[in-house]
């Protein structure tokens, strides 16, 4: 018997649920510290910079730059078929987040740091939508 290996699917926790709820609506909603006047990521109940617990959830543009990436030729997690691109995106609003760069052939000559990217939603199931990124439409 062969079992299809499944990609890991996030289990939202109480402090991250609003982020994942936003993803489900196809809105990139991040925690925002009203003291620092800055977004942060990943979600916590407090700001990791100033330790203020006055947090709001605000929507981001879904646009940013490819801060760094790698082309994975071995699956680092079950369910991934190499080659695929793991990416750290720097959102225009400040924070960095991990994602996959899609919509582009995963070849070294195609991808470069600081290229413009934008979010592309992937609905995984009824609960979870993942924020992937693709090269920005110019």
């Amino acid at each position: 018997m062969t079992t299809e290996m499944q990609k890991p699917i996030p289990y939202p926790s109480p402090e991250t649920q609003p982020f994942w709820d936003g993803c489900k609506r196809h809105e990139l909603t991040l925690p925002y510290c009203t003291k620092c006047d800055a977004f942060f990521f990943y979600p916590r109940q407090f700001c990791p910079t100033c330790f203020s617990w006055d947090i709001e959830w605000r929507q981001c543009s879904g646009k940013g730059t490819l801060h760094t990436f790698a082309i994975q030729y071995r699956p680092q997690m079950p369910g991934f078929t190499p080659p695929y691109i793991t990416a750290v995106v720097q959102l225009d609003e400040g924070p960095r987040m991990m994602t996959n760069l899609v919509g582009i052939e995963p070849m070294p000559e195609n991808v470069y740091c600081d290229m413009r990217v934008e979010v592309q939603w992937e609905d995984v199931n009824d609960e979870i939508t993942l924020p992937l990124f693709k090269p920005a439409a110019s």
Partner: protein
Amino acid sequence: MTLKNKVAIVGADETDEIGFVPNMTPIMMHAQAARNALRDAGIAKSEVDGVFTCGVGPMASTQLCEYLGIIPKYTDSTQIGGSSFVVHVEHAAAAIAAGICNVALITHGETGASGRLRRGPRGMGGMFDASMPSAQFEMPFGVGGPPGVYSMCAMRHMHQYGTTSEHLAEIAVATRKWAQLNPRAFMRDPLTIDDVLSSRYVAYPFHIYDCCLVTDAGGAIVVVGADRAREMKKKPVWVLGSGEASTHQSILGMPDITQTPARYSGKAAFEMAGVTHKDIDVVEVYDSFTYTALVTLEELGFCEKGEGGPFVSGQRTAPGGDFPMNTNGGGLSYTHPGMYGMFILIEAVRQLRGECGERQVKDAKLALVNGTGGMLSATGTLILGTD
């Protein structure tokens, strides 16, 4: 108060066999390495009253003390990946200097290679709690193991500072040359920069030769206070400086993707030792990947930030070069069971004692050891010296 000269490493050894050792479990390796290191020191197991270890279950020191039959006065199961055993030395120094224990035993053993054949949980299993940030914000994007993460760090470094694949290959080749002088090294075939550059990618920009081995190995270290150290038959290897730091757990927490906490642990170690970079005779830094060694040299201040590539060029770190580094053949070519930090320590001790045969660095009096754990997350730096 400073820990400078308060303690010395007086015993250091590995398991009888390293490489592929399917007839041993990790805890068997801890015990055999402990026996060998205590024998090297000339100290009986019954004298051990401090135990520092990780990698044998969630209560590692308790497990190991039970297994070895030790009732300790002080234990420490600090698990910060490959840097664990390096920081254990600092922790042992603090405990001894405070008079809490007298003979500290630090042990390691892992079966990264043959453990795959064994039943049951293995590797870092159990560390991945589904509620942890990495399970929600990294793993769903196919990010998990070190190659996938270190490659992304290297890519940003290459973009920002002009570091090239050739620069990284310089380290792989130089380290292999050291391995060729070490009969216990796992990989001893000749290797050229072209070989590295034409090898397949594991995680672009990393070629296969940019990545460390996966082996079985164990090692142990014995640390005692200054008075006891002077009575030993072998030259004591003094802890002159130490430091530890961590800046993040996962790549998303990195303040700057091109930096590592070695900038803090290294600074602390140099300040305590009161020596300068020029004084260091031999450097043993964690090389989970070629990039790890390169960025660590920058972070420790051996060169300007971003100048790691030019710094290692021209086989500068190879035998005969003016910057001997990773003289056992490193995690890249000697051995790398998972948490390699123990072996850079042991090699530094051997170099300072003059026990390294063909690969001996002439008149090595001062060594720097830097262990790196996790995703460039945690570092421990030691400056060690002999009289």
